[in-house]
């Protein structure tokens, strides 16, 4: 699990080392567990077990909990995002349509069309009220042949 998260994490930013718009900011928060903007929820983004190839449609899981750690059920979550340095949005419209277990949701239809810094923005609507969170994911060149 740590190995696969490493594909998206900060240490590999130094390996990118490309000039111009290709280098993400060095102070980028790439944590996959974050509080929402108004502090209502703690959201964890779980990448797939096998790092997807570029342009391969794949799924993540989203865990929604209260600040105390209790799973939050029946959330409706809208997904948006894009590459801030390139001025374009996501190449697909990912959807969260299924709650797999209490507070665990399936995020389907994710696709990265290139390496670099991506934002994944989640807008949550739950019985406890709406809130938002943005995750930063830095996609690196896969090491293996795809």
């Amino acid at each position, binding site marked *: 699990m740590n190995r696969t998260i490493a594909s998206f994490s900060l240490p590999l930013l130094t390996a990118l080392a490309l000039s*111009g718009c290709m280098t993400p900011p060095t102070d980028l928060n790439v944590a996959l567990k974050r509080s929402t903007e108004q502090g209502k929820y703690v959201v964890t983004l779980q990448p797939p077990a096998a790092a997807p190839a570029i342009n391969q449609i794949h799924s993540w899981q989203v865990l929604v909990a209260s600040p105390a750690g209790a799973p939050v059920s029946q959330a409706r979550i809208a997904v948006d995002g894009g590459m801030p*340095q*390139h001025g374009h949005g996501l190449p697909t*419209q990912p959807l969260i349509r299924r709650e797999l277990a209490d507070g665990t949701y399936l995020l389907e239809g994710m696709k990265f069309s290139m390496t670099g810094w991506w934002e994944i923005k989640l807008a949550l609507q739950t019985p406890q009220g709406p809130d938002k969170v943005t995750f930063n994911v830095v996609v690196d060149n896969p090491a293996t042949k795809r």
Partner: protein
Amino acid sequence: MNSRINSLAASVATLLLAATAVAVISVAGGSPAHAGPAAADPWSAGELRTIASMNMGKLAPAPVDPSNSVEHLPAARALGKRLFNDTRFSSNGAVSCASCHSPDQQFQDGLPVGKGVGLGSRRAMPIVGAGHSPWMFWDGRKDSAWSQALGPMEDAVEHGGNRTRFARLLATHYRAEYEALFGKLPDLSALPPDAGPNGNATEQSAWSALPAARRTDVSRVFANMGKAIAAFEKTLAYGPAPFDRYADAVAAKDPAARGMLNAREIEGLRLFIGKGQCVTCHNGPLLTDQSFHNTGVPQRDPRRPDRGRAAALAKVKADEFNCLGPFSDAKPEACQELAFMVTDPAGLEAAFKTPSLRNVALRPPYMHAGQFATLEQVVAHYARSPAATVGHSELAHGAGAHKERKPIQLSEREIKDVAAFLGTLNGAIVERAGR
């Protein structure tokens, strides 16, 4: 005396070495990371990873198209190749797929816009490697190669035909080959000579007059034609280019790499993956992210703006030949691209598909309506980054709409260098039996 000649020779040798070192540093742009003796590896670790990601050797086989159950069959490829070249499948008997996608001309026609029975509004795309793309055409209005093949056949300015006419032609000239693949042809004898939903008023009214079951029969034959053509098209692939041999050599730290590309081409590659920002969209072994972008390309006809992807969203969803349609061989859950398609046109006004740059130097003119005659003009366009007249360009220009994106700044010489690098992407086109 010998010692004086030797020391003179040594001084000359030192001068020559210094001159060479200076030349190498200036080629490398003089940045601290690249200064140093000529023997040093000119690429950083990050650049090496990017170069490796563009190597043709990294290209996975084209994905299986679940909606086309015959795409891997040799008989389908053979039938498809014959149909691809058959000019009878047009209203004037003179237009085949090969008319605009000429096998002798990189499977395109070298014209700004396609010329079939009439004049089109967009550039013929080179179909090699199209199996790697989830969306076909500059605007992605078709979601498979077989569905794409059917579009021009019923387009009034391309083949100008209709599916009923085509079904009869198949029955007349290709009955045995068709039936071996798709089973018995329906009885077409009582059908009108010309009828189709995309034809002129007469053809459309002849089509609506047919019972639904007959229309489905004819549409199925038409769909099967497309599937055979797509099976043939999927056999076409790009062979390795000088860039790929260079990429192999630098990955292996082979000193012979230095002789494979010249200094201009290497500098062009550095700019392509660096401050030229080209690789942000032209990435991977085919040098495309297979996505849609607005980069402010000038409209061919400002009086009739081309909205690109934005206008295609409804078309692909409504296409009877899409992955979810009745003629698709795919289970609905396999139609992921369609299920998760971006449906909000806001960011897609005048956005067009990033084309592959393989063999690009061999097929001017460039952009969706052939707006630029040379690669230097293309690169100069990016260096200018003009505002879009329809929609919004993703590129930064002037003050920049996106504060995180830097403007692309390239000198005249750097523009030429990028064009020189693009010339290293030329390989053979290979027709092969495997995927």
